[in-house]
């Protein structure tokens, strides 16, 4: 079975460059590519009873939207590369969830854009890329 490259994707330009880089390397190593979108979420937030009752439905909606609007177009763009590609969306802490997915799929490498959606969030949260380099079980490729 060929190697798997896991790409953290958040629809930013930088993330697109990460996808391109993964495709370029993947073509050489004939690797598979898994595009992952993490919906930021924490198990320890406070919510109202009404929100909780609707939560299951909303979660499905969020996953649907992430798959159809964010991941699917990018998958289409990758079609020309003729690589074996997959997509997945999941809720959670971005870096930790990517690590979890990497473990689950036994990824050979995580590829990620250096900057996230907004510079401000990156500054506050310390950036997914830098967190990944510290906790990832496999090599991490950070694409500027």
């Amino acid at each position, binding site marked *: 079975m060929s190697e798997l490259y896991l790409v953290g994707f958040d629809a930013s330009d930088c993330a697109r460059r990460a996808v391109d880089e993964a495709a370029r390397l993947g073509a050489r190593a004939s690797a598979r590519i898994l595009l992952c979108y993490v919906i930021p979420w924490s198990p320890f937030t*406070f919510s109202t*009873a009404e929100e*909780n009752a609707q*939560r299951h439905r909303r979660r499905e909606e969020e996953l649907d939207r992430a798959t159809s609007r964010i991941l699917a177009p990018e998958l289409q763009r990758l079609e020309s590369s003729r690589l074996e590609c997959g997509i997945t969306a*999941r809720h959670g802490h971005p870096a930790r969830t990517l690590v979890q997915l990497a473990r689950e799929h036994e990824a050979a490498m995580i590829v990620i854009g250096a900057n996230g959606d907004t510079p401000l969030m990156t500054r506050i949260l310390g950036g997914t890329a830098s967190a990944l380099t510290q906790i990832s079980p496999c090599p991490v490729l950070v694409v500027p």
Partner: protein
Amino acid sequence: MRTRLGDFSSLSEPLLPVPLLSQSSVDERIDAIIAPLTRVVENLILFPMPIPGSDAQVPFVVLWLVVAALIFTVYFRLINLRGLAHGFRLVRGDHDDPRAAGEVTHFQALATALSGTVGLGNIAGVAIAVSVGGPGAVVWMILAGFLGMSSKFVECTLGVKYRLVHADGSVSGGPMWYLQRGLADRGPVLAGLGKVCAVVFAVFCIGGSFGGANMFQSNQSYQQVLAVTGGADSWFADKGWLFGLILAFFVALVIIGGIRSIARVTSKIVPVMAAVYVSAGLVVIGVHIDQVPAAFSLMFSSALGVNSVAGGALGVLAIGFQRAAFSSEAGIGSAAIAHSAVQTDEPVSEGLVALYEPFIDTIVVCTITALVIIMSGAYTAGGEMGGVELTSQAFSSVISWFPYLLAVAVILFAYSTMLAWAYYGQKCFAFLFGDSRAVANLYKALFLMFVVLGASLQLGAVIGFSDAMILAMAFPNLLGIYFLLPTVRRELDRYWAKVKAGTLPNFRDR
């Protein structure tokens, strides 16, 4: 807790002194018309039982709650003690499957339920217990809270087991569903009983959501604003209706406007307020750290009737049990509505998490309040003081600006209690009249009307009556639960075997 006891002048006092300000003739006339009727209902529900050997009385419903809690504790072999460690691991998320990330976690369900329960009861209820029953009442209050943990366990397990998942993926749960669906499994006779219990529960819950959890909260926040802004000289003094309108506006923003950001802010502020309150309590206790042993020994010695204020040991016990029942709502059934939205395949797991609700609400927060009140000596000084005022004074002996913070906390707690109960009431309204938009809007309109009424009227009788409604929810709820106990026992034994064998999936090590 949200309620004040109805009409037991020997046992209860208003949480706050009620100034005779807007006692217009209209109010008095309405009061006079309604009072005899509500008193009959109140006496039926709160039926005061004399305690042999003393002149104290205990309402029948309080006995009903405590006896049930005791039976559950024995039947489930001290689940309130042996379930705590595992409950903590569940709250921490050890057993949350990462593939289910994004669903409601145990922590979130608990936090939501707590924000509806932590409130005036922890601030004012304890003060009343101490000022009426002496320091000893606190010991009984803690004991009743401990037993109440078992009631919560049963309610919330059933709430999850018999919840309804709608076609659109949203969830409805709570006593009305487990009474109806749970008892329906157990033969035609019990099915009929279940249906009756469910309907009666829903009616009482709606009544409670208009009264004790709405008018009363609105009334108490108005009084608190009055007290802070200068009492009878306050600009708000004769403008209760205006305060009611403002409050109703903010409630409407959330329940009609669906402005989630406000609901979300409230659901964040309330835990912060609770944390601030607890830390302030710890600071006061820290300042008087040398008095802690003395305070505890005073509590225990007067618990057994030595130097007690009201009617010997049994009288003290009655007051403590009563306050605990109001504070934790264990056995009332309300929290099961909030808990049932959790994501889990194991109903028992949410029951074990729910153990922490009375634990935090009644045991931790109430003990801190009690220690502050006892150590500051405030309860012996103020003859007429009770409720929020007493707590406020006790805190201000060390932290002088605390009364202002407390005033804000009282209003926020009242607000979050109203929002939580607006949801509970709406769920029960939908259970009775169908799940349509028109029905929901009718309920919301009624709810808002009662917010304004609560602040502008001094209807003691009506408030007492609707307090009785909240407590009355315990009758259909616990009656039905007795028949469902074997089901819970089977669930618990199956789950506990998994825990013991270590076959429960654990995701913490990953």
